[in-house]
């Protein structure tokens, strides 16, 4: 037996061990003393973040090349760790008030993170699939973890059924690709594609398209988006933030590595479907977002629209689209998480505040929340000098550079459209009176720290994007 190089597994193992420690400690602490668990989780995530910095630049694989630790994986690992840490910070008070079991909650967030880390690092379709399931199952449970809420359970059920359906597509796609190429390892598949060009059995392309459909489900692209609003609305709000940021980033990470990079020779076959997908996802997401009465649902549709912008980067292809894709995911992580965190801050335990009306007067009643929400809304709408503008700018720039002028124009028009519903929140907060009088804010210092961090990130990436751009570039180039 040859030596097994365990270094590439270090980040995932670190998070997994933290999850197990949290589960174990959970047994020894009484109700009311479990605040410690959050700190243990955060400590584990911080250690892991330290490891990713230490490992930055490595290019090692393990388990017969099935897991690859390169800068690409490390980049996404850092996004996942950040999202998980912010999620934990923002849910400390929330879950206590909603009477959700703390030990299980933190452990599940950590398990999901483990799955995501492996998804970004998977070099083998089977490993990818296992990682995806690890993540998905943990997130299904997180969605339904608020047992007192009927909507939470309903959302979990919907998410689970739709997710299982998507999984079916993915698995079927993997099977067809295996059948055509004789391997599940990505390098061997791409070798096959390069060595025998144009000699591909039709079911290989079928397999790739099924894979595409599976991914489209996971990122909530139209027309596979039906689960998104219901699930985002029903899930406990911190979990919604986690889903919209981390789960989406994980799916796009795998998409970028598998379809965009390794299966690039097939791109002529999916370029057109993806092009259509990108346009209808952007447009429908924005149009439906306008008509929503609930802010949480509006954000769900806006997250669909943002998936559309990200699809533009995928259409553009790896030469131009890689860097903008990674950078956009980074910027989106801060602003979307921040927006959901503000809703968490408003939430009452039984009936979540979702109406635009519940935001009226917020800007004056709670200036910090009002300003933070304004910042996130403007950033999501793509105003300079905020992160969202920088992200969109590089995506649309890459579209123009690669000759997809129509996509860029439709994208810009869409982001103009999106201003309508993002501004509505701001109008409610500053220009309408009353409404929020009955609403109380959570006394949750950690939540406010999380919102503050997200706001700082949104500002920083917008004003000084140079370092993050370089970081994204190095990460994408490390794909081999």
């Amino acid at each position: 037996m040859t030596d097994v190089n365990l270094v590439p597994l270090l980040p995932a193992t670190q998070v997994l061990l933290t999850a197990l420690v949290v589960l174990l400690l959970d047994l020894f602490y009484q109700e009311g003393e479990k605040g410690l668990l959050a700190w243990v989780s955060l400590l584990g995530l911080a250690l892991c973040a330290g490891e990713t910095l230490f490992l930055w630049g490595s290019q090692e694989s393990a388990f017969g090349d099935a897991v690859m630790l390169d800068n690409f994986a490390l980049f996404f690992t850092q996004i996942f760790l950040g999202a998980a840490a912010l999620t934990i910070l923002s849910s400390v008070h929330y879950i206590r008030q909603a009477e959700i079991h703390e030990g299980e909650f933190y452990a599940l967030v950590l398990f999901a993170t483990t799955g995501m880390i492996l998804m970004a690092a998977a070099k083998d379709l089977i490993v990818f699939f296992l990682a995806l399931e690890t993540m998905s199952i943990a997130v299904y449970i997180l969605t339904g973890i608020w047992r007192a809420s009927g909507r939470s359970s309903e959302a979990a059920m919907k998410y689970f059924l739709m997710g299982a359906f998507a999984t079916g597509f993915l698995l079927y796609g993997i099977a067809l690709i295996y059948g055509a190429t004789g391997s599940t390892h990505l390098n061997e598949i791409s070798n096959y594609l390069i060595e025998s060009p144009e000699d591909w059995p039709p079911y290989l392309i079928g397999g790739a398209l099924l894979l595409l459909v599976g991914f489209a489900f996971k990122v909530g692209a139209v027309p596979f988006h039906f689960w998104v609003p219901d699930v985002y609305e029903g899930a406990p709000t911190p979990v919604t933030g986690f889903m919209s940021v981390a789960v989406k980033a994980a799916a796009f990470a795998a998409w970028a590595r598998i379809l965009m990079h390794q299966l690039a020779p097939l791109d002529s076959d999916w370029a057109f479907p993806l092009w259509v997908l990108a346009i209808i996802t952007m447009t429908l997401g924005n149009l439906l977002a306008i008509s929503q009465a609930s802010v949480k649902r509006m954000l769900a549709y806006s997250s669909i629209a943002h998936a559309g912008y990200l699809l533009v980067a995928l259409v553009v292809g790896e030469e131009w689209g890689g860097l903008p894709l990674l950078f956009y995911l980074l910027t989106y992580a801060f602003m979307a998480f921040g927006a959901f965190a503000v809703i968490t801050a408003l939430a009452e335990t039984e009936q979540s505040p979702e109406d635009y009306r519940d935001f009226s007067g917020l800007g004056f009643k709670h200036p910090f929340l009002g300003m933070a929400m304004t910042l996130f809304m403007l950033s999501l709408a793509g105003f300079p000098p905020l992160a969202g503008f920088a992200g969109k700018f590089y995506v649309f720039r890459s579209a123009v550079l690669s000759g997809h002028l129509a996509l860029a124009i439709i994208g810009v028009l869409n982001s103009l459209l999106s201003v309508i519903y993002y501004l509505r929140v701001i109008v409610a907060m500053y220009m309408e009176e009353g409404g929020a009088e009955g609403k109380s804010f959570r006394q949750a210092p950690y939540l406010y720290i999380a919102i503050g961090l997200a706001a700082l990130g949104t500002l920083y990436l917008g004003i000084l994007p140079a370092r993050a751009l370089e970081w994204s570039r190095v990460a994408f180039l490390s794909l081999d």
Partner: protein
Amino acid sequence: MTENLLTYMTFIPLAGAVVVLLLPGKAHSLIRWVSAAATVPPLLMAVWLFQNFDGSKPGLQFIEKYQWIPAYNISYYMAVDGISISMVLLTALLSFLCIFASFGIEKGVKGYFALFLLLDTGMMGVFVSLDFFLFYIFWEVMLLPMYFLIGVWGGPRREYAAIKFFLYTLFGSVLMLLAILALYFASEPHTFDMTVLIAQADRYGTQPLAMWPFNLWGWGFQHVIWMALFIGFAIKIPAFPFHTWLPDAHVEAPTAISVILAGVLLKMGTYGILRINYPMLPAATADLAYWFLGALGAWNIIYGALCAMAQKDLKKLVAYSSVSHMGYVMLGMASFTTQGINGAVLQMFNHGTITGMLFLLVGVIYDRAHHRDIDGFGGLAAIMPVYTGVTALAFFASMGLPGLSGFISEVLVLLGTWQKYPVLAILGASGVVLTAGYLLWTIQRIYLGPPNEKYLKLPEINGRELFTLVPLGVIVIILGVYPSVMLDLLRASLDQLNQIVLPHLHQ
């Protein structure tokens, strides 16, 4: 210190905004004075800049250039030249005065002043940026505080006015962004640096595009870009038919914001055309601006004046007079003569000071009588003599009475225009008559005649209000008597600008 002067001028108000945000919300007077203090250094620096600016040389001075996002060739590039120097001074001056004009704000004091200072940063940034990316960022940064200042602190229909303003301007911004990107990709190597883009002006093709409807009009790439930028700027000016947001925004906005809106924001439109359209797209400028821009300007003058004449609301009247007076700027720019362009830029400055005064004066009477109905007053001259005196000065300056600044710039514009299009010059000159008509009629209705019984007890204009008006009045008189103070600084740069476009005319 002088090395990064423009940066300090731009960002000191922002630092002031951060300080204001950290102050307790109840400390109203502290917030007001801190805000006032934050606008003093930029004003002093602007005055220093004005004195040390070398007017005999064309081209950029006080240059600051640093790498910002090197991967995309985006730099942090600031400088001033003859096109922007007067606007920088105007921005610094009006920001300073308007802080004092805002001392009466009682609702959400902290938010108001923080946004105001942010607006100040955005405005200053627009005038000193020479990198397109930076320019666009400041352009948008300015839009948001304006939206809030109208939408939160405005009058009864503030939400409607704010959203209308926002959508109009945003539409313009998007067109502008697309044009900026198109220029970026047309340049080689790709750059946002305006000076480089100007140097490469002949790269932007003028061959008619094969696409309908451009093939019918004979428009090339350069013409399309010109029009996209022009619409973006025309909305700001506001040129007919994009002017309809202006009366709404002005009527609803608080006094100080109206002053900033008319005094500074409108100038950004004409400034943008001079800074970007003229030197960067000279061939299209020669094709499209000749006649078209001049005719639009003349139409703005007459249409604005006629609309002003029909108004019953004093503030709306002043708003339409802005539409009319910005027409002179367009008319002067379109003449491509030394007098015309110099007159246009001088008119930008003069309109800023005069309209600033007018809106401040409207604010004074509105604060006392709580309405602005022109027919609802009468005989105020007997009740408030000092106020009436200042108003008369502003009105006379606005109608272009010799000896006051408005006269100089309007005459220069008309002199320049006469050489190219006498018909438009005649139309423009008739605007002067219309202006005199509606202003004198207004003076008659509000200030002359028997005093209105209701307002016999109106208090006279107070010290703070006079403090905001006197500096503007002094400038109006100085520039009316000795305009060379300003013109000497502009001429070299504007001549150079004119020389870029002239070779393309009459080909």
